[in-house]
């Protein structure tokens, strides 16, 4: 099992190079990272780097076009969450792996219908730790409320969860121990955190039908 940070932004999006992020990730106990717009899948300093593409689109047509364009080269396709209708459509579209950014989506952007869609299609919902670490006050409270709601739906519908730091700098990366502590703030149990850290592997190698050999 591989412990993965599901979304980091190396230089030039952030201030830290990919190799340096890998060094720090290794120190913090991570086995793999999903780099947005990284070159290719690689193993750097014993950390597996997976290429992710973050699709930030206003409409579903744009998402479909980007998914078709990127799905051959990218390991993981992440879509930034929008309103309720957009999220339902994105979660139903085959090829999307992760929906992220629910903390900044409008109210009721993720409901029981979206949760059911995510569970049926095996699309993961990302829990981004960046707002918990960097925001203060009402903004952080909104993120915590949103993650509590996602967790409640996850326990009911069993859709996959991923955890990401959204790191743009090595200072934003967090260790597995810290991730467990931070997720406990909104009520996530340690075994749920562990499962969420291993989800990326499962997304890339989904369980197929049983074959008789």
């Amino acid at each position, binding site marked *: 099992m591989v412990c993965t940070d599901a979304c980091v932004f190396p230089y030039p999006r952030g201030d830290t190079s990919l190799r340096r992020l890998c060094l720090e990730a290794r120190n913090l106990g991570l086995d793999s990272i999903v780099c947005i717009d990284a070159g290719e899948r690689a193993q750097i300093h014993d950390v597996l780097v997976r290429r992710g593409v973050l699709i930030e689109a206003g409409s579903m047509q744009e998402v479909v076009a980007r998914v078709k364009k990127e799905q051959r080269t990218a390991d993981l396709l992440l879509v930034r969450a929008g309103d309720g209708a957009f999220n339902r459509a994105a979660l139903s579209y085959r090829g999307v792996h992760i929906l992220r950014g629910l903390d900044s989506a409008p109210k009721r952007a993720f409901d029981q219908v979206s949760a059911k869609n995510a569970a049926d299609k095996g699309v993961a919902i990302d829990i981004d730790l960046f707002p918990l670490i960097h925001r203060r006050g009402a903004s952080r409270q909104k993120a915590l409320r949103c993650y509590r709601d996602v967790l409640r739906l996850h326990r009911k519908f069993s859709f996959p969860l991923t955890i990401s730091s959204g790191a743009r*700098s*090595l200072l934003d990366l967090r260790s597995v121990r810290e991730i467990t502590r931070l997720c406990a*703030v909104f009520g996530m149990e340690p075994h749920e955190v562990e499962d969420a850290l291993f989800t990326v592997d499962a997304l890339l190698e989904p369980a197929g039908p049983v074959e008789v050999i």
Partner: protein
Amino acid sequence: MKPRPPTLREKRRYILARIVPHYRRIEARQMYIAAFEALTSLWGDARASELQMAVISCEPGHCIVRCRRNAEVFVETALSTITEAEGERVALHPLATSGTIHALRKHIRPIPEGHPVDGIAIGGREYAGILFQRQKVDLYAKGIKNQETLYFTCDEMEVD
């Protein structure tokens, strides 16, 4: 006033946290201000007052924080949310918790020394920096304005 006998004293726990980047020199008082802000904003004033957090020492690369026994989880979580101290960007990674400072000191690793490097060009800009072990290089843009910091390794730079 006579000090309380040990059996009547409140039990304490000590948390060792790694400071990133390790060369940032932050006074214990400034670290306390940053930690207390993180603690109150995350858990609120009422809970923060119960935790009795204090910064015992803050040396380059690590700091030791004291709190009440059974409060270490709350303090560790709050330490993870520190992003700035003394106006500088930092991160704190809690490493270990113990009942004595002596036990924590065993976890402290020596701080690697850096060597200054100059004449590094990235994206058409000139940088100076410090080279550390394992080919880590922390770069500072030259000039007065926009002194951004970049974290790279030797493999990714063009050194003159």
